[in-house]
């Protein structure tokens, strides 16, 4: 037959009511967690401008090595383009003309006079103009 108290809940397919185990449904938090949430609320409510203090940028903060160097400014050498720059297409022509003229070499370079004399003689043999 069995114990009636065990079967009484199953009569008619009705389940017996469950007893509470002592814990109830909910989100369990501690006071510390609430304090953490409180701190987070304070952080959210402060604007970014209030959250951070603006520190003016100095050379020492940006680059300590640069701050240790001599503070006098470096005088940069300014290289300006020549007012009348030689035309690249004609640049070789001038040199050729000067070097080609053996009389000029003979007059300007005394050390090169024997060479210039020999070159002039060779040119004359070929039929060229010294």
């Amino acid at each position: 037959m069995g114990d009636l108290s065990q079967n009484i809940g199953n009569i008619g397919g009705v389940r017996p009511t469950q007893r509470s185990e002592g814990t109830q449904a909910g989100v369990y938090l501690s006071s510390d967690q609430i304090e953490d949430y409180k701190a987070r609320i304070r952080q959210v409510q402060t604007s970014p401008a209030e959250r951070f203090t603006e520190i003016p940028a100095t050379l020492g903060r940006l680059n300590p090595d640069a701050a240790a160097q001599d503070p006098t400014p470096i005088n940069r050498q300014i290289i300006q383009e020549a007012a009348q720059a030689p035309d690249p297409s004609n640049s070789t022509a001038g040199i050729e003309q000067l070097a080609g003229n053996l009389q000029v070499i003979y007059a300007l370079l005394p050390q090169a006079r024997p060479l210039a004399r020999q070159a002039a003689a060779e040119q004359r043999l070929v039929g060229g103009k010294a």
Partner: protein
Amino acid sequence: MATKNTTTKQAVADKQNGPSLESLGLKSPIEIFDILSILRVDNEPLIKSSQALLDQKLKAQTIMEYFKTKFNISPGDLPYLASMIKHDLKHGKIKLRRN
């Protein structure tokens, strides 16, 4: 400069009208108190009487008084608290314990 002005304007608007519930991820003011009413701080329920559970106004009043007296959290900060708890519940940082 423009962003600083907008943030200060937003802060002033929040102080006057309260925070935007939509931006906090909340659907209605009732949701704030529904979320906070399921809290059990140090194993103690916030709402102990069944009457306060059923009556929305009484529930809201009980929750506001609880947080003000115990944690010095003003009623204006409760939407933020509810929003954070909802966010943490969704992301599994805190869990809803069932029977």
